[in-house]
């Protein structure tokens, strides 16, 4: 069983047990435009909820990706380092950024579900 949560900074986290897989939303990739570079956290790195975890760059600008939760990074998706355009093609599936072992699953309570996130994005337009 897995459940996906969303942040107001346009990250998603899909949680299975105590492991969360993190990426950026389709809305976020659309706003960024063509992604040309991504920098991922190293395995073992400690990340904090709302803290810098990765960097994604389009032709025009660099943007920070924040970790939705606190924990330790267990995997990084080298496929998007080699092929940044995958983030535009498959942002919420193949182009995940990193996996994190949650140290405080209670942090998920403050995040949005899909319906709430879609309403949040619609409200920003």
């Amino acid at each position, binding site marked *: 069983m897995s459940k996906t949560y969303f942040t107001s900074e346009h990250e998603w986290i899909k949680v299975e047990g105590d492991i969360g897989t993190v990426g950026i939303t389709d809305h976020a990739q659309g706003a960024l435009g063509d992604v040309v570079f991504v920098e991922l956290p190293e395995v073992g790195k400690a990340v904090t909820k709302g803290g810098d975890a990765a960097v994604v*760059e389009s032709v025009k*600008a660099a943007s920070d990706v924040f970790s939705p939760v606190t924990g330790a990074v267990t995997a990084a998706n080298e496929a998007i380092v080699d092929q940044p355009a995958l983030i535009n093609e498959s942002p919420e599936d193949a182009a995940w950024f990193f996996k994190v072992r949650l140290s405080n699953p209670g942090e998920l309570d403050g995040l949005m579900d899909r319906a709430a996130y879609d309403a949040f994005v619609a409200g920003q337009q």
Partner: protein
Amino acid sequence: MTQETILRTPLYELHRELGAKMVPFAGYDMPVQYPAGVMAEHIHTRTKAGLFDVSHMGQVRLSGPGVEAALEKLVPGDIQALAPGKVRYTMFTNEQGGVLDDLMVSKTGHDLFLVVNAACKEQDIAHLRAGLGDGIKIDVLEDRALLALQGPEAADVMARHAPDAAAMGFMSWAAIKVAGFDCFVTRSGYTGEDGYEISVHEADSVALAKLLLAEPDVAPIGLGARDSLRLEAGLCLYGSDLDPTTSPIEAGLTWTISKRRRAEGGFAGAATVQKHLAEGAPRLRVGIKPVDKAPARAHTDVLDASGRKIGEITSGGFGPTLGGPLAMGYVEAAFAAPGTEVSLLVRGTPRQAHVVAMPFVPHRYAIPGRTS
């Protein structure tokens, strides 16, 4: 310029119809990209032809006896040697030899026709009023739009709508009809490609833009690709790569100053410019190519092998045609030779890079006198 008075060009509604993402730029609501996106728009301009709305830029006509000599007090460019129908790139300098704005000057007949940057135009016009003297008439052409058609197919597209444009050499000016509309056309641009800039009355501008966009090879291009195209071409962006503390010599624009003007001076800041010419400038604008894939953006520190700061990136990003990151910036003169190894401090991590000759992508301007 306050946020509530954001201006629109005559093509604003057309941009919206074309699905552009609009952003504030130099006080105007401008298209940063269309649905194709920056990458596709950039590649389209390098392989076919792109149409840019640059109507936010200032268009100014100067007239009166001795207008060329009068303008030479404000710019180091050789305006008196400019033949009718020719265009020159130059810059307004301040008393310290810094750059107040860069501009294109066309000699139309007896008059001069200037195109200046949008963000500087109010200041430039005040500077012209204060500096040209009473005998020179300054007309700000606020009722004209400016379109740029750029790319390897631009000449063929223009030839279908303006047969007279085909014979124009690079950096030339002509008053000709384009698709029946009276226009001022220069063979110039800001992409490194062959192309034209077309000044047209605002009332005709949407119809002309639509005619050009109806050509199968022409696509609308936003400011995002305009920036990546000019960066690959090694061209300066005022406010980033040029500013009031930077001399034209430091900026690598020595080629814009003729032998006569170097010797005679007679423009604001000439003493500094002549000193930089004679003794060498203390720092120089250079191309910088990162070794790995991480782009280095403006304001990134440039370090030498010992970690000492020797300069700063002023424009940087990703070059779609180059297929990798690229930057330009200023370094101490001792580090300006192509091949010099430097490092760039990107998010706290030094990353290896080399000073390289510009342009990053070869210019493909029309050869003067050749039609295509």
